[in-house]
């Protein structure tokens, strides 16, 4: 187990270093710089050069990268040139909001897709199964920005049940969380159904039934437990997909999370913010992958045994 955690940890650290180079370099070689965005076209000729010198943007990219790494090592993520707020503060406030949104979407995903997927498998070709598959198809087919527009028109504008955008209580979380979770619910639903169906066709299930185990126990305990590994593996993919989609959903719903801040900072070439937030997102993805690997390791006895033997 320790060996497993260590090897994954080293891999994650390497990914993180490579990603930091890619982020820093990518932002610098993208056309235009911070100076092009924050100077007025009317006095651009004078201001761009002045600003690049003041902010060290005229230094080679490699120098800028090492300055960036040195600052991070010292715990200094820098200050936004646009808002003059510390990046740490932006991460703290936006990160909490994104965590709430992502958490709500993840909860929604599992609370809907797992029971529905099991029921669909247990009652194959029933109305529940057909209905679940319809939900899955729609969830995968409708682009999330379009779904957002539909849901806002219906629940905010027409029915007035929920706010159209912004931040506040739980009510403000519902629509963004549903939009964020829609595709994950669809994919997870199909995965759970397929995985449980596969287990239900196995010999040990027939043996359990022959021994008189109740159908509920067979499906919800035995089949589901053995169907878990692929669902857990997909969990890592799903969580990082959710994280990626927050970029879109937060902009649509004017939800002040990290996604919103990242999009804004990249478009404005606010390097300090964009670099730090990109690394936060990358760290999130690396962490979710690690947790998925760990979960898979713990849930799959054969892998565990192989690890112990090795």
């Amino acid at each position, binding site marked *: 187990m320790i060996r497993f955690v260590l090897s994954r940890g080293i891999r994650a650290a390497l990914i993180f270093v490579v990603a930091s180079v890619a982020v820093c370099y990518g932002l610098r070689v993208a056309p*235009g710089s911070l100076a092009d965005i924050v100077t*007025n076209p009317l006095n651009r000729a004078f201001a761009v050069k002045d600003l690049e010198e003041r902010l060290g943007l005229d230094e080679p990219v490699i120098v800028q990268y090492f300055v960036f790494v040195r600052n991070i090592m010292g715990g200094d993520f820098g200050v936004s040139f*646009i808002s003059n707020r510390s990046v740490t503060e932006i991460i703290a406030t936006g990160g909490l909001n994104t965590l709430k949104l992502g958490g709500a979407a993840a909860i929604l995903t599992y609370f809907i897709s797992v029971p529905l997927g099991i029921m669909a498998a247990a009652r194959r070709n029933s109305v529940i199964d057909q209905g679940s598959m319809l939900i899955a198809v729609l969830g995968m087919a409708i682009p999330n920005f379009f779904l957002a527009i539909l849901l806002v028109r219906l629940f905010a504008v027409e029915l007035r049940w929920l706010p159209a955008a912004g931040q506040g209580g739980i009510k403000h979380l519902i629509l963004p969380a549903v939009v964020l979770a829609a595709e994950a619910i669809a994919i997870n639903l199909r995965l759970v159904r397929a995985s449980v169906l596969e287990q239900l066709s196995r010999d040990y299930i027939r043996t359990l039934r022959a021994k008189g185990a109740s159908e509920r126990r067979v499906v919800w305990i035995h089949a589901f437990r053995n169907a878990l590994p692929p669902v857990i593996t997909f969990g890592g993919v799903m969580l990082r997909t959710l994280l990626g989609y927050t970029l879109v959903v937060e902009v649509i719903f004017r939800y002040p999370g990290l996604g919103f801040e990242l999009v804004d900072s990249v478009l404005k070439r606010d390097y300090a913010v964009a670099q730090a937030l990109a690394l936060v997102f990358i760290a999130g993805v690396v962490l979710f992958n690690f947790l998925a690997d760990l979960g898979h390791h713990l849930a799959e006895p054969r892998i565990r045994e192989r690890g112990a033997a090795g």
Partner: protein
Amino acid sequence: MTQTEESELRDTIEQYRNARLTRRDFVQRAAVLGISASVAASILAACGGGGGGGGTTTGEEGQPVQGGVLRMGYDRAFQKLDNVVGPWADEPFTAIYEVPIIRDPGGKFVSSVAEAWEFSSDGLTLSMKIREGLKFHSGAPLTAANVAEDFNIFRTTGVTANFWAPVKNVEEGENNSVVLTLSKTNYGLIETISTLFQSIHNEASRKAAGEGWGATTVDATGPFTLKTFKPASEVVVERWPDYPGSGVPFVTNKGPAYLDSIRWVPILEPANRANEIETGSVDIVKSPAAQDISRLQSNDDLVVLELQELSNYFITIDRTRGALGQPGVAQAMSHAIDRQALVDTVFFGHAVPTYGPIFPAYRWYDPGVEAYNEYDPDKARDLLKSAGLSELRFTLLTQNQPIQVQVLEAVGGMLREVGITMEVKAVEDAAFFPDMFAGKPDAFMFKWLWESPTDNMRFFGRVPSWDYNGNPPKSMAGIDAWESAATEEQLEKACRQVQLAWAEELPFIPLVTQSLVWVHHKRVHNFRPTQTSIYPLFNDVWIEA
């Protein structure tokens, strides 16, 4: 327009505002004064209230109520609220800053921080008397010395430093006045001084704030102070209780603002703007999607105000580049474009075609430009043929914004009809500006937004260079006349000269001016954007509890 007519127009506007005239009466009187129906409609929209306005009045009835938070939906992400070198003047500018002089709804310059101004008889000295008793948010007194200091910053390192070139000295004069000495006559300086990037600030505070100016600190003279600046999510300003009162004649509240605070939120997705005003999550929204405007107009809880934006979409082609530089090519392209179709299809009628470089609601707009550049595809083909071109192909660079891409898709289709193939390359702003200013693309499209349209011609004629824009002799002569005008009459004459020359020579090809649309709830009162300013003032605005 003569002085008498101008005075009559002002009286007419005042009577309409005080509900002593109906809309019909207003339009009839305006017509007598030589004002077109479209301009009269714009003035009516700007005035808001008045006689029998129906669904588009601002509802000035009732006594103003002190307090409340006004929630504004804004159509852009915010930039630093920096009046000296900021990239963009966002809406909170008019809440926290004040300009030296300002345009009234009729376009006449009136007092704000300065109470009077006068050019010397030779036109080489401009004296401005600063109002007494003013102070900054920090409590520091505002004197002519502060204004002189600001003007010196603006003319050396400010956004509009180019426009200040004729000013060779600025110093404090007698009796709380500022004296500007010019190297040549330049009456148009007044136009520059009234723009938002000439807002008065406390230079000592700006120096102390460093990079925090416009984000964490603004020490200016407007009725509100900056509280929160989070560009991606909100900007909040609070009432300044010690505000000495507005010097602007058309602001009726002469004390501190009625509102406790104003909170702006960026609503970047156009379709969401209508949703947010309909659901009440904001009280006012700017620039809803064009296709949503008619729905909003039919909503009894809302007031829709529509003005012409102080802007213009235009296309510029590189005249130094082979076929694009052939005589008549720009004119051919212009004749191939059906501007009214752009207005009807892309903007759903919420725009006006522009055949010259300036929007039609401008006080010195010359309708003579409409004789040029009319839609005539046959003429376009003939012009191309005369230039010896059977076909023409080029790539146009634009900012990657949906409306600009839609305009260009439509224009591209129209050009194809006459044998011109235009490939559109849409890029984000950070990539657009360096290429545009370096003159890299074959052509580019841009939209200027500025309160002094002729100054735009001065500037964009040189972007990326006069060579790129064909060195148009008549237009350049018109710009020279504008830059050396000694009186308002000469300035107006130069403005008209520039417009007509521009329409003929086409250093850039004008397309359309889109509407500036504001939608507010009826519980908001005295919200009065004007046709002559980019943003409204907020000191009169109040909101029902």
